């Protein structure tokens, strides 16, 4: 009785009661021993629909952390995925989906993975890739993320199934035993096995990070350029032989050599993308060019050159090597035409000094009468019979501040070049170790009118150009190489005035040496400043003035002599 009495007394103590209840609870609900969490089994008693949910071994409360007890609050907070997936937000924040305010759960269904919407097609039901060249091929072998997301490295898996023929070994394929099949070895393999006895299946794996999807896809050169994304390839042989050997992935990705080059062209520099023009694999036609060059096309399409010669733009213009026309020198311009008109020298046999003419003229000087022509001068180094124009790279090193070469020439900043400025710069360059420096010149088209149908037969008039009155003497430019390309800065005065004989003795052009009546009258009329300007522009024509004066004096003497003979009857 004593012991029972003691028990009863203890039971009466409240603190003991509480401890007892707690122990009882722990026995009944063991999950309560794990801190404050509630076990999944407990959750599933109510939320049976999540029975099949597996999120990489996590428990319900790993995500629903605000469930500390059961029953829990009616409204729970949304789980933060980033508490575990720590790296993803940084990438995702920059993606196009984040900017469209899509949350994790918009694509990922944590409770029912089979109801995930991570396949792009869930949202992007109609994916138009009309601007993608070889649309079907690309879409059939590549996942969306291959182009639209960040990919670290792609691999090419090539399976060649050889059904018949002699078995062969790895060393029959990797002939040089360098552990990779190159182009020659691949050709040799295809020669080894019989035609129609094999199939080749190529798979392109380019696992992209779907969280990094950008608005625009990568450009063609990501895969088809010099540095392809696809760095590894595996050739799997099955059928009569069975082995694997690494293979150069480039063998299975057509390389577009022009892609690198294209970035340097005027199209590339101005942000024209491959797919802006290459809407299919078909040859680019005029309708593509017309999108931007409508005005030029409208002129050209009605000319006879368009109907019987170069019928499409690309016959003359290579969009991958297109340099702004103003950057081309005379020879380069000539070569555009000479691709077809190879016999141009023969056809100009009527032209005296034909080869010499073509050192200084482009075809359209005569054959495009409506184009505007100008004399352009440039600083060059003598090289054979021509002058090699100095480039920006040549001049850059000569000046402390080479951001703008023009400012070193156009000292008074009036955006035109005077004789003094030209001479000063010439002398300055000469001092800077450019001993072979010369001023080159050419007559080129400075404003193109795209009609080349004039056969020029009526233009066989030398005096059209060989005259001081030739139209291009009104328009003279100094071409100055700048970082961004050639700057055409107008030159003031006359050719001889701008390029005085005292400095530029090796320079001679067409009409400026012709003597005119006004040269003789002005020789006697001009005074002061206009006299010095006149003499500068007269150049070596003072020889004519002197010569004509001497002949006049001699004739006068002859007349006096004749008079003398008449008077004295001798």
């Amino acid at each position, binding site marked *: 009785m004593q012991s029972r009495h003691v028990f009863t007394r203890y039971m009466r103590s409240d603190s003991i009661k509480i401890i007892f209840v707690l122990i009882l609870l722990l026995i009944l609900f063991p999950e309560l021993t794990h801190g404050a969490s509630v076990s999944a089994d407990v959750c599933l008693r109510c939320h049976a629909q999540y029975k099949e949910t597996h999120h990489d071994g996590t428990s319900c409360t790993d995500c629903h952390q605000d469930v500390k007890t059961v029953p829990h609050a009616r409204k729970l907070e949304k789980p933060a995925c980033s508490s575990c997936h720590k790296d993803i937000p940084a990438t995702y924040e920059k993606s196009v989906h984040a900017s469209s305010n899509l949350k994790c759960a918009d694509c990922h269904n944590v409770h029912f993975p089979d109801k995930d919407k991570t396949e792009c097609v869930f949202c992007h039901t109609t994916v138009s890739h009309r601007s993608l060249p070889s649309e079907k091929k690309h879409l059939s072998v590549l996942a969306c993320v291959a182009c639209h997301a960040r990919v670290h490295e792609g691999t090419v898996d090539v399976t060649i199934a050889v059904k018949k023929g002699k078995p062969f070994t790895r060393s029959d394929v990797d002939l040089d035993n360098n552990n990779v099949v190159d182009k020659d070895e691949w050709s040799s393999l295809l020669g080894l096995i019989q035609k129609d006895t094999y199939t080749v299946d190529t798979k392109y794996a380019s696992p992209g990070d779907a969280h990094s999807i950008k608005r625009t896809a990568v450009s063609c050169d990501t895969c088809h350029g010099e540095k392809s994304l696809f760095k590894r390839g595996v050739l799997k042989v099955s059928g009569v032989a069975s082995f694997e050997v690494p293979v150069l992935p480039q063998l299975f990705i057509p390389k577009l050599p022009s892609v690198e080059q294209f970035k340097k062209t005027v199209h590339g520099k101005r942000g024209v993308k491959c797919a802006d023009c290459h809407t299919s694999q078909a040859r680019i036609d005029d309708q593509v060019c017309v999108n931007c060059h409508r005005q030029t096309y409208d002129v050209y399409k009605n000319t006879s050159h368009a109907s019987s010669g170069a019928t499409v733009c690309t016959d003359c213009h290579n969009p991958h090597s297109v340099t702004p026309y103003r950057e081309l020198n005379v020879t380069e311009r000539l070569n555009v035409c000479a691709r077809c008109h190879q016999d141009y020298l023969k056809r100009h046999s009527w032209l005296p000094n034909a080869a010499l003419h073509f050192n200084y003229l482009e075809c359209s000087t005569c054959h495009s009468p409506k184009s505007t022509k100008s004399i352009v001068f440039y600083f060059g180094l003598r090289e054979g019979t021509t002058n090699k124009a100095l480039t920006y790279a040549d001049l850059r090193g000569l000046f402390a501040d080479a951001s703008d070469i023009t400012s070193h020439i156009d000292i008074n900043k009036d955006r035109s070049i005077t004789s003094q400025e030209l001479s000063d710069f010439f002398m300055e360059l000469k001092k800077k170790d450019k001993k072979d420096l010369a001023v080159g010149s050419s007559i080129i088209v400075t404003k193109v009118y795209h009609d080349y149908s004039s056969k020029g037969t009526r233009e066989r008039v030398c005096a059209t150009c060989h005259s001081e009155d030739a139209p291009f003497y009104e328009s003279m430019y100094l071409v100055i190489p700048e970082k961004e390309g050639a700057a055409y800065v107008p030159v003031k005065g006359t050719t001889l005035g701008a390029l005085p004989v005292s400095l530029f003795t090796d320079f001679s052009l067409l009409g400026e040496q012709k003597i005119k009546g006004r040269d003789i009258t002005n020789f006697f009329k001009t005074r002061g400043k206009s006299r010095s300007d006149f003499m500068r522009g007269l150049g070596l024509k003072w*020889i004519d003035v002197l010569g004509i004066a001497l002949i006049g004096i001699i004739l006068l003497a002859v007349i006096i002599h004749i008079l003398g003979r008449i008077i004295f009857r001798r």
Partner: protein
Amino acid sequence: MKKVSSLYPLPIRIWHWVNALLFVGLAVTGIELRAPGFSLFSQYGTATAVHKYAGFSFIISFLFWLIWGIVTGAMRYYFPRGRDFKEIPHQAAFYLYSIFKGAPNPFSASEREKFNVLQKISYGAVMLILVPAIAITGIMLSDILYFFRSINAIGGLRILDALHVAAAYLLLIFLVVHIYMATLGKTITAYLKNIITGK
């Protein structure tokens, strides 16, 4: 005056007139090339071509004269000798003064001395300095690309052109004086007859 059987042999007479024709042709086309305001041919291109080929012919004609002169020894007529220089004042005085008084020419042409001292100096300078100069510069101008290095060596196209033109003016002056002085014989046409008939 001593009777000379043939002062000017036939080949030299033919050469003289061929040369004269070429000279005038070159002068006229040359003026057209230099002064576009003056035009003989309606086409500048024709003038260029005529000038070029007349120029080559002129050079052949010059070479004939040179070889003839060296081979036959006629070249000696063009070189004034020491005592000739004393004659300069007399000869000049004749042309400028005594000719009006009807004085005889202090010089008379002979087999031994065909030209007076002033003729020697002027013909010599023309044939041995000016003509070679204009011929060489002309050849260079006929194919600028081919002679590019040589052209640069003498200072460039502008200088080459200037030399050619300067020689041309001097030759034109010579032509005027030569034609006029051809009328200063005993009769106005006496010298003309000489160079046509050789007598």
